[in-house]
Every structure is written in C-alpha cells, then in structure tokens.
C-alpha cells in the first residue's frame, strides 16, 4: 500500500498544475510534483531529479549524496569484515 518507486523527472508537462513526466524503470508517467518543489527548488529546476513516486505523486526528492553515503558505509562494512576474516585466518594459522 505504501509502495514507492524511484524515478527520474525527464520533462515538465504543466507548470501551473505542477505536472512532470517521470521515467520509472523505462515507463513514463505524468506525476504531480507539488510535494518536491519549493522556493529554493522551483519546478523549473526539477528536470533530472530522482524522486520517489507514490500513487501518482512525487513524494520525496531522492538525496543522491545520502544514497552514496549509505552504499559507502555498507561497502566499508564489507572491507571491515574482510579484515576480520583475515585476522581470524592469521590467528588460526599461527
């Protein structure tokens, strides 16, 4: 029910009613962008934005830096695990 899918805004359709075309996994759909625009980030600057789409509305502008940070943290965890594994191997072999 609360399903949301990331998509990228490709063009503005209607500036008055704040409608934009969003590419969601190759499917293009008109989406209402009222919830992702404000004075600092007006509709005109939305093309290229990644947004989370729910029930035909863009509900959040995806923070690409945060996404990269989460992935980096997860990758780091992998490195840490590799190090722990290496330590274990060294311990058992010595």
């Amino acid at each position, binding site marked *: *029910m*609360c*399903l*949301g*899918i*990331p998509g*990228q805004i490709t063009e503005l359709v209607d500036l008055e*009613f704040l409608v934009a075309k969003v590419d969601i*996994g190759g499917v293009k759909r008109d989406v*209402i962008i*009222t*919830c*992702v*625009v*404000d004075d600092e980030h007006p509709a005109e600057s939305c093309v290229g934005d*990644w947004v*989370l789409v*729910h*029930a*035909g*509305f863009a*509900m*959040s502008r*995806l*923070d*690409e830096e*945060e*996404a990269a*940070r*989460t*992935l980096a*943290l*997860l*990758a780091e*965890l*992998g490195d840490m*695990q590799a190090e722990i594994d290496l330590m274990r191997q060294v311990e058992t072999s010595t």
Partner: protein
Amino acid sequence: MKYMDEFRDPATAKKLVEEIKRLAPIARGQRDMPLQIMEFCGGHTHTLFKYGIESMLPADIEMVHGPGCPVCVLPMARVDDCVVIAEQPGVIFTTFGDAMRVPGTCKSLLQAKADGCDVRMVYSPMDALAIARKNPDRDVVFFALGFETTMPSTALTLLQAHREGLKNFSLFCNHITTPATMRAILTDPDLRLDGFLAPGHVSMVIGAHPYDFVTRDYRKPLVITGFEPLDILQALWMLVKQFAEGRCEVENQYARIVPEAGNVEGLKAIAEVYETREHSEFRGLGNIGDAGIQIRETYAAYDAERKFKLQAAASTHDPEHLKCADVLRGVMKPWECPAFAKTCNPQNPLGALMVSPEGSCAAYYAYGKLAKRKENT
C-alpha cells in the same frame, strides 16, 4: 533499476547478516526470550518474506509482524459502507486495487462490481478526479485509504477538485495515522516488544520526530528503514547495535528518502484538509483515539460520508473461527489460526490479512514455509 538494484546486493547482505549474528547475543543479553522486533509496515513484512530474511537471522532475534497494512486493519463494516455507496444510482466508486477483494460482512467491492455496480480500480486519486471531469453527470467517489504516505495525495486531489469547483467528486476517508497506532501497540499488555523498524514511506511524509515518544516514554529503540533487503538488514544491524551499546534512539537508515522534518508541502496539505477523529475502530486493534482521520468541515462538500449520509458504522466482529485480530496484534502466528490455508487462502480470502500481499497471512502462505518449519523445530 537505479536506487533499487544496488540495495539488493547478495554479498553485502551476507556481510550484514554476519555482523548481526555477531552482535545479536550481546544485544539479547540476559533476556529469557529472543529480542522481539516489530516491523510495523506491511511493505517491510513483504520484503522480509520475499527475500527470506527471517531464515537468515540468528535465534536471538524474532520478527513480529505489525499492523501497518491499511486494508488489513479496515473493519468489515467499512467495506460494507463502500458497497452501500457503490450501490447508489449514478455513483462511480474508485479505489486502489488492494481494497477490491477485501471481504465485507456481505460482499467485497469486487463482488459488488460483478453485481452491476460501477467500481473502478485506479492507480492514483488524480485518476479518479479525471474520471469525475469526464463524467459530470455521475458522482465519483474515491476510497481514501492508507497511512500518512497516501494522505498528501488524497488531500491534494481534494484541494484540486475544490479549485476546479467540481461538485461530483468526493473522498470516502479512511486514513489512519502511524504514531497513534504504535502507541496503541505499546500499551497492549499481551504484547512484549523490544524495538521497532519504522515505516520508511510514512516517515518521508511525517519525518523522524513523531517517533520520539517511542524512545522517550517507552524506552524502545527504533530505526526508520527502506524497503530493499539491504535497507532492512542494515536497519536490523543498527537496532542490534543500539541494544548491544545500551542506547535507545530514533535512527534513520533511509536518509536518502526520509528528511528529518518530513515533507513540508505534504504536511501542509494534510493539515488543511484533515483532522483526527475522536474514536475509530480498527480490526484487531479495537478503538484507538486519534488514529482515525476525517475531512474538515470546510471541505464537507467533498466528504462522501456526509454526502451519502452514512450511519456511524456499527461495531462488527470477526467470525469466531477467524483469528485475524490476534495475528494482527502479533500475539498469534498466521498458521495457528484454524482457518489458515484451509478455508482461508488467497483464492478465497476470509480475512484481509490473506488478501493483501502485505498481509502476514498472504505472506506466510506464499513464502513462509521455511520460516514455519524453523519455528516448529
């Protein structure tokens, strides 16, 4: 797809599971039972089952499936109300697909459609508005259902109808709020919980602070999380870390989507259109003050409840042999219900938990064989 596939990487999942396994015994500490972690949201339940995450978790952690599935907590009497509206001459009743097959005491919306009512499935409330524009001589009703994730979309649609002066569009409002529902769970004496995974898409609307009471008043750690398997595993890892380090905080694993303050425009639309109901009955949860939502007097013309003069729904109880309420509250597992997979199955659902793919009964039916076996041994 970008921003989905990279959060499904199996190698990273394996490493997260190893970290969780390492920390879980420390996190569990002296508890005589495993840590009871509730994933509130039905979307999270779906991810847990789809990717078999529960079977990867150590015995120190037990997931409790929460009531965060709007069609699952909808009392049968509200479905009956939908059917009553749909049966009015000239009405086009529009709804999200999830609600079509939910049984009422007499019939579901799908059965009403088969009996000749004009019931239409839509993807967005704006699609319902488009139907209203095209059919000025018909009354178009949209079944506004869902937690806070969906509320801005229905509120903005109502405001748009108001701007256009459309007289033939209304909402049948059955929205429900997350924090009030969580509070009801926390005060349930039958339920012993240690922590929460909080719903990511509800939180993108309401932000992180409405959960502060969970850590402050009830001392339960909480992590807001997304819907990909790595999101859930990272959130579980963050939660066991909180236990292991003796912390109790609201943390946000899903920062790429959830801003701390939520969605300002969405919250503005919600505040403009909606107000809390004093009392609302929910399936399995009983009467919860302040969890139900109604349309403000200012927008009464767009309120299907007022337009069609619905009587206050009589309290309906589930049939004796259906244990939906206990399963919803997490005090009974789906297969312990006498009807599970016998008289109640996805082809012929008796309860809403078997209808929605987010319902824990449907999830157990589709994916749950392994988890069930694990718990039986």
